[in-house]
């Protein structure tokens, strides 16, 4: 009943601890810039104007725990951008790569992952809920890896 669980884990094995620690030491800006570019491509065209207006102007930290990766992005002047690493973020989201993948594919439910502690969300709960509900309403942002028949 949960066909996506195995493929997600299989295509994204966790990094070895040594490599994860190395990634965690890298500057935040490069991955943030890449994430902003990706969001600009896959999310921005589908983001309703009213949601974009309400989400704009806040920094969001996104951590991929099993990769040791941290990004900080914001939506400003109508575009996704990397946000300055200093200062507090409005929202901090942390999960493993497989959980992100399942959410991006529309295979899972943020509440369920949250109950299981597979997804951590800290900061402005109202903003987080707005983000979650907006993404839920938009639908899958990713169709990789393909589902098996």
């Amino acid at each position, binding site marked *: *009943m*949960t066909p996506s669980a195995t493929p997600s884990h299989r295509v994204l094995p966790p990094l070895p601890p040594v490599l994860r620690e190395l990634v965690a030491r890298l500057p935040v800006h490069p991955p943030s810039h890449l994430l902003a570019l990706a969001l600009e491509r896959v999310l921005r065209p589908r983001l309703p104007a009213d*949601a974009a207006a*309400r989400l704009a102007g806040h920094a969001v930290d996104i951590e991929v725990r099993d990769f040791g990766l941290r990004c900080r992005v914001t939506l400003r002047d109508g575009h996704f951008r990397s946000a300055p690493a200093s200062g507090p973020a409005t929202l901090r989201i942390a999960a493993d790569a497989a959980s992100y993948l399942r959410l991006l594919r*529309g*295979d*899972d*439910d*943020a*509440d*369920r992952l*949250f*109950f*299981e*502690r597979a997804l*951590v*969300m*800290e900061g402005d*709960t*109202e903003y*987080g*809920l*707005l*983000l*979650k*509900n*907006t993404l*839920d*309403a*938009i*639908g899958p942002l990713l169709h990789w890896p393909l589902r098996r028949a």
Partner: protein
Amino acid sequence: MTSSPAASHVASPRPPRLVCPAGSLRALTLAIDAGADAVYIGLKDATNARNFAGLNFDIAQAREGIAHAHALGREVLMALNTFADAHAPQRWWRAVDAAAGLGVDALICADTAVLAYARDHHPQLRLHLSVQASATTWEAIEFYRERYGIRRAVLPRVLTLAQVEQLCRHSSVEIEVFGFGSLCVMVEGRCALSSYVTGQSPNTAGVCSPPSAVRWTDGADGVDARLNGVLIDRYAPDEARGYPTLCKGRFDVEGTRDYALEEPTSLNTLSLLPRLTAMGVAAIKIEGRQRSPAYVEQVTRVWRAAIDACAAQPARFSVQPQWTTTLGRWSEGQQHTLGAYDRPWR
């Protein structure tokens, strides 16, 4: 005790209709495509009891969703189930007008003022009594039928199976019961717990825990959940969490720290399906407009399969293990219960 009116709908029990939640157009589409007989939706304001940022429908989305459902012969019910603000009830009247204009198949209401407005201004509109009205006897339901012409009542989750059966036998309107989803503290329509801490209640503002009042904080000892600054639970680092509502918090009571009111768990009545059908229950409701489209789709598929299997061979119906596995996966706290249906006390 007065005699009950003729119960016209119980003569030949039909499979209950499957009523599923939709917090977005995408959830509505997936629910319909997964086999829901009807979906229930709300507008993007405090007129419904799931008033969360980014959730629910604007008029254009509702119109599109209704068109999709109607094209496949399914129904869309609109929840207008909060209590009108006495200072500004016009918002609720406008919502009723909008729902009528959209061509929804029924309104789900709790407030007698909203019911009366709908009855007087849109007499053709079918009315369902919301669980928020907290009508637990057939006499109470009959009052709503006589005064407002309701055609269906959604029962609060406080009744035992025997009580539901008794009510079905005597009611002259259709009966809808909850089949699956998060449980509330079971005084629907009367709960003021969140008002105590936040000044807002589900019956007026449409939310149990206003998101602006909720804070999760990771610390060395685990995660603190606070509601308007009040600590309502502290979870160990690897401990499963629940919704941050006051009723599901853990508190020190006479030296024991535990759930003082209710544990985070989900109702699951799959095993009761043959009995609910035999009683003449007209519809089974799935809770969770706040949940993702993935939840809606998968839970709908399980219940569609179960209702069809029960209709085909009620005497041989058994809950399939994969249904239980799937529903367990989507349950709050990953545990489920028969709730009050199986309550040993009275």
